[in-house]
């Protein structure tokens, strides 16, 4: 691993505490490094500075120097260099730290500024927290508690603005709650590159809206909901569904493409209610696609497989594994692995294929990259298949070779791990072979299969993916699978054991002990030790392969 270049450090003083921060850090981030929170609304680390909320006003001072000689001026009282405090408060977001900069975040002037801005923000706010989706994760609530006066002096009427405007298919706007911070406007312009939002009217009557004839319908529109500090922009899908404080947060990985955007899966009592991005400055910053957020619906999909199938008769897991092993005995087995399987599943698949002497096929999934967080490779874990040795080279499209081998009579049994064989085989070819299917949803393959293991979706199991940067990223089970399903790892290890292969543990931490020992690229990793931001693997063994990805956020081919 190449160490990142060391940034130039400068010393600043936050509330009397000296701290070294990288040059160019703004005062909000400098204070954060010193463990001091500077409240703010419009500032967002991944967007340009707007400076309009005025919540981050602080007092700022610079060391005094003699204007003629540039020699430091010493304060006789303290013996230290004198600090020239700027009489007006300054916004911490737009002021970069310079050597020796002093800031005060708790002085009477700063407190007065914070109380003033809080009061101003609330006078025209509807204060409808009891029915607002943002309640519980609302910056207005948090900061009015932390920095406000606690009472209102406002007796005039409040502004009336449009409620529940549909900005697009997935975002609902309540203009009365909007504090005009312009985060969403900047996001659309700067990140999504789809400049559709803006303000109309002037002064306190300013109203957020879409440009005439435009809609907020790009695939990143829901990020505006995440960054909205108040309840103005809400997700139409999540609106009025659940209180956020009831939800359990589980770290996940977006399985849409090889970008592997980091996510948080919000669930309660075994049901997922929403998915939001998790900050990873090396992968997805604080963003994710809308399409990735709606994937949780597959958990409750009506075509979900929940019954073990054993030649048309319902049966237990061990019976299914034994039946599969019986099919393997006749030889002519092929394995269709998946770029959607986790590293662990791919490793067990590789072991199974090696034990059975089965050729491995892995259909590629290629689409158009959006240059942001969806790459051309729509398999989230193509590189995992390379790292675990499931496939020696980049997979190609379709299952042409497998079809040929079936026609030639060389293949009699196919184990498919989550891949629909109908994508590459004809109905006739499917009928010729015995299929063992490990999957989550009903399709032509599960219908044709003699043995079906109902498996888990990515939200119900723990594992890892290797993304396009060769970054090993882990995800954890957010909810349990429905009754009748079994972890893919359990199904695969049972099949391997039933066929007479060396037993592998199905429990993920135990399996990782084997993985780390046997897969050289993973030698330094253990599941429980993988950092939240992922672990970069050595990519040199595969550097020459013609990967399909183009440029995306934080990735250059």
């Amino acid at each position: 691993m190449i160490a990142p270049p060391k940034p130039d450090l400068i010393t600043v003083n936050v509330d009397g505490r000296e701290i070294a921060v990288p040059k160019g850090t703004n005062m909000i981030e400098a204070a954060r490094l010193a463990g001091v929170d500077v409240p703010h609304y419009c500032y967002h680390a991944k967007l340009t500075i707007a400076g309009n909320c005025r919540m981050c006003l602080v007092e700022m001072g610079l060391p005094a120097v003699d204007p003629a000689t540039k020699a430091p001026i010493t304060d006789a009282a303290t013996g230290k260099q004198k600090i020239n405090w700027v009489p007006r408060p300054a916004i911490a977001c737009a002021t970069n730290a310079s050597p020796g900069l002093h800031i005060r975040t708790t002085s009477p002037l700063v407190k007065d500024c914070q109380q003033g801005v809080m009061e101003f923000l609330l006078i025209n706010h509807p204060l409808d927290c009891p029915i607002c989706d943002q309640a519980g994760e609302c910056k207005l609530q948090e900061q009015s508690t932390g920095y406000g006066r606690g009472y209102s002096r406002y007796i005039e009427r409040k502004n009336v603005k449009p409620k529940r405007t549909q900005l697009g298919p997935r975002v609902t706007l309540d203009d009365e709650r909007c504090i005009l911070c312009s985060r969403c406007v900047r996001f659309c312009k700067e990140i999504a590159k789809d400049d559709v939002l803006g303000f109309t009217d002037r002064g306190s009557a300013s109203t957020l809206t879409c440009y005439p004839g435009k809609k907020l319908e790009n695939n990143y529109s829901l990020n505006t909901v995440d960054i909205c500090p108040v309840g103005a922009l809400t997700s139409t899908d999540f609106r009025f569904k659940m209180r956020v404080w009831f939800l359990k947060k589980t770290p996940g990985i977006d399985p849409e493409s090889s970008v592997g955007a980091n996510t948080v899966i919000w669930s309660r009592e075994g049901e997922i209610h929403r998915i939001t991005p998790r900050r990873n400055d090396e992968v997805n910053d604080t963003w994710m696609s809308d399409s990735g957020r709606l994937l949780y619906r597959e958990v409750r999909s009506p075509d979900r497989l929940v019954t073990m199938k054993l030649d048309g008769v319902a049966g237990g897991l061990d019976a299914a594994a034994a039946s599969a092993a019986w099919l393997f005995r006749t030889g002519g087995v092929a394995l269709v692995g998946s770029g959607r399987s986790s590293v662990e599943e791919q490793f067990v698949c590789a072991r199974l294929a090696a034990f059975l002497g089965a050729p491995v096929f892995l259909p590629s999934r290629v689409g158009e990259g959006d240059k942001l967080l969806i790459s051309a490779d729509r398999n989230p874990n193509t590189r995992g298949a390379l790292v675990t040795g499931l496939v020696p080279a980049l997979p190609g499209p379709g299952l042409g070779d497998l079809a040929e081998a079936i026609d030639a009579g060389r293949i009699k049994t196919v184990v498919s791990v989550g891949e629909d064989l109908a994508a590459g085989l004809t109905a006739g070819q499917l009928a010729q072979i015995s299929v063992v299917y490990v999957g989550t949803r009903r399709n032509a393959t599960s219908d044709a299969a003699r043995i079906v293991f109902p498996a888990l979706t990515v939200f119900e199991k723990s594992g890892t993916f290797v993304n396009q940067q060769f970054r090993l990223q882990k995800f954890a089970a957010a909810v349990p699978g429905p009754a009748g399903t079994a972890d893919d790892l359990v199904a695969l290890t049972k099949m391997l054991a039933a066929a007479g292969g060396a037993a592998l543990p199905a429990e993920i931490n135990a399996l990782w002990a084997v993985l780390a020992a046997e897969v050289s690229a993973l030698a330094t990793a253990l599941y429980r030790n993988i950092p939240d931001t992922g672990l970069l693997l050595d990519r040199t063994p595969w550097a020459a392969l013609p990967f399909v990805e183009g440029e995306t956020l934080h990735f250059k081919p």
Partner: protein
Amino acid sequence: MIESLEGKRPYPRIKPPYFPAVLGLYQCPTIVNNVETLCHVKHIADMGGEAYSRIGTPNNTGTRILCVSGQVQRPGYYEFEVGKVTLGQLLNDVCGGPLPGRKFKAVIPGGSSAKVLKFGERYKGKRKAGAEMVDYDWSLEDVPMDFDSLALIGSMGGSGGVIVMDDSVSMVDALANINAFYSHESCGQCTPCREGSQWMQRITTRMVHGEARPEDGALLKSVADQIAGRTICAFGEACAWPTQSFVQKFPDEFKSYAETKKNDPDARAFELV
């Protein structure tokens, strides 16, 4: 204006950079001037800088166009060498004094955002005259109409718009009009000015509609204090200064406004600008 030319919503820019002359249109040095400045440029080019700098008083050179409006006999535009006329001379001699039977009460010397001055006030202290400091003891009528003197007594030369109010004017009514203007003009970019100017407007509008409370003056002042010095552009000060100075200089009028209004048979709500 520069933002508009760049095709953006016309919001004031975050400072620094401080001046368009450094980084203006498309981040290039840009000169933005008002008409008065350009009028001066013509004379400076004609006369030469040195001859022009002899007009007016030291440190306040050139001429100023004063636009006198309100309750005087002869309102209008008057051009003077800067500092060569006092406020008293301007209002009494040039503009013909107050209307018949009236007395001057207050004057805003530099456009509606400048702090109001009250007749009868005296201003004392030391000021710079050339290199040395000299004592001054002025009534409002003695104040020379130049930038430094007006700043010294807590207001400003500003735009040169001199607004005169006589004893027939209710200061609350006058402030209600000013606040309505500033609330309407606020661009809405930053919080204190956007919400504060509207709040002040709503308070003064409520007051002139017969719902005044004795504590409204103090509240107005407190709201204005939360705006000035905390905004992106100078509009924050512009909308806060009238309220701050009106309430500070005429606190009794604000306190007793409810009573005054009740006892005035002609009182009625009026259209604000």
